[in-house]
């Protein structure tokens, strides 16, 4: 009956309430700042009193000589990161799952999470060393195979890949943990039944493990789609240089340099808004696709 249902729902509303209040205050209220994207912001004035300039800030960035190049670099690097950044943790989680010795499993698990704690400031220095064409060990290794030294961080052909691979190395531990936790959630009896049916480990992986973690994979992939314009400011900033602006300059580094001349909050807000809109569109699309095609609600 209507009333009973309503009464049954009340505890649910109550549970959500604290979280809702918090986001209303600390996330929704600050949204008023988005108006900065359309105004000429002057600090001493009440927020809505600033002169309205419409889309001028967007036009300003668009009109910059390298805006298209920068947009392309951002999309390229971010997309690669999303794809590789999802595939690697899945693979590693699966491989890790096959380890029989508990201590080995735990050891590896801990160690692969460690790079997450390193900041790009110090990693930058390390990477420059090991990727150096003249002295870096990576190129020395390549030399063993007869490959010419590659200037990873200074060559526009290699810079994006280097960024992607080093970032995945740093962060794959994070997603691997999530997948591992998901793997433990798969009912063991399914495996027992499969063994009885004589299925090989590989078949088990295909038919039990993968489908078992599929929801999480879709979830993480979708959420990471929201980052399609976040190529990783911290990392790129510490690794790039004028010699690789062509392939490595991303939206955020461009906005940063603009901001050095003047604390351009309006421009930064405009660009932030643009990125948010794109993320929102991507995530909404994935949400609806997953719902329509697989009857799976991501959230």
């Amino acid at each position: 009956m209507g009333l009973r249902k309503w009464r049954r729902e009340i505890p649910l509303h109550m549970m959500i309430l604290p979280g809702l209040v918090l986001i209303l205050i600390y996330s929704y209220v600050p949204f008023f700042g988005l108006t900065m994207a359309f105004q000429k912001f002057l600090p001493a004035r009440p927020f809505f009193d600033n002169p309205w300039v419409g889309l001028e800030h967007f036009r300003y960035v668009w009109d910059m000589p390298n805006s298209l190049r920068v947009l392309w670099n951002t999309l390229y690097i971010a997309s690669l990161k999303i794809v590789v950044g999802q595939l690697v943790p899945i693979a590693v989680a699966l491989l890790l799952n096959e380890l029989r010795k508990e201590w080995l499993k735990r050891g590896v698990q801990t160690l692969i999470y460690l790079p997450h704690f390193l900041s790009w400031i110090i990693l930058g220095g390390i990477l420059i060393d090991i990727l150096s064409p003249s002295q870096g060990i990576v190129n020395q290794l390549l030399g063993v195979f007869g490959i010419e030294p590659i200037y990873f961080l200074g060559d526009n052909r290699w810079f994006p890949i280097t960024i992607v691979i080093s970032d995945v190395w740093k962060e794959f531990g994070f997603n691997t943990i999530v997948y591992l936790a998901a793997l433990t959630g798969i009912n063991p009896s399914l495996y027992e039944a499969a063994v009885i049916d004589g299925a090989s480990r590989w078949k088990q992986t295909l038919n039990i493990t993968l489908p078992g973690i599929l929801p999480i994979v879709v979830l993480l992939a979708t959420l990471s789609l929201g980052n399609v314009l976040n190529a990783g400011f911290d990392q790129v900033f510490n690794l790039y240089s004028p010699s690789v602006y062509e392939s490595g300059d991303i939206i955020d580094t461009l906005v940063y340099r603009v901001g050095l001349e003047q604390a351009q909050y309006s421009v930064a807000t405009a660009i932030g808004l643009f990125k948010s809109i794109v993320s929102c569109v991507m995530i909404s699309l994935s949400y609806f696709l997953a719902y329509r095609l697989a009857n799976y609600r991501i959230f």
Partner: protein
Amino acid sequence: MIRMSMGYRVFNAFNILFLVALSFACLLPIIHILAISLSGSSEAGAGLVSLWPVGFTTSSYEFILKKPEFLTSIGVTLQRVALGTVVGMLITLLVAYPLSKETHAFRMRTIYAWAFVFTILFNGGLIPWYMTIKWTGIMDTIWALVLPGAVPVFNIILLLNFFRGLPKELEESASIDGAGHWTTLWRIYAPLSMPAIATIMLFTIVNHWNSWFDGLILMKSHDNYPLSTYLQTILVRMDLTSVTGEALNNLREVSDRTAKAAQIFVGALPIMLVYPFLQRYFVKGIVMGSVKE
């Protein structure tokens, strides 16, 4: 257990080899940084350190540790982590549970869900964030480090998906026994989601431990800086495009390199030690797979 075929044995061997190599690839830079942090500043500055300290000295650590601010900031961080994790986990559980229900059981569900997701997509910007925190009067208090980030939407989404994966029969039989939503959440769902909860708790702890930017902007007094912020402020940044005459004497003291390296360790070590303990919870699989369709 599972009988290993020849092919599987080979695979197993390679797998172990590969994963160990991968672990080394992750471990080596850490060792390198540890070595730098224990090396002399000239040696580190000349790039002479690889995996072993050269010119062994603990002066970088002394530099960081002997300041009284170090102890105060650890206190602040511990406070923040404790408070932030408790508040964050509570909110996560409380929000994930209702959102994991079907729409027919909870009609506003999808609207609420989008309301939460919206907050990770859109961001009002640094200045409005600062102003809002000022208006709510929590500036320069521990709550400024806890409340604004108390709703971790990503974690909530993870947890709600886990909840969804639990057999529906559990809830049905609980409700038949007269359990309301609160009891179901705390007595049934939560215990069964231990791996997910442990994972999320780890992320929350790490996040609070490492956040330094909010501490920098929102804390007026140096005594209120959390550890990560304090560590950021002691780095001597070498801005070579403009070094003032008065900065002359600074340059002779602690090297940029070794201090940064020590900073990483002081900041990250506690977490690296906590993590293995939380791992236990991942391993305990779900036993109650008994009711299955």
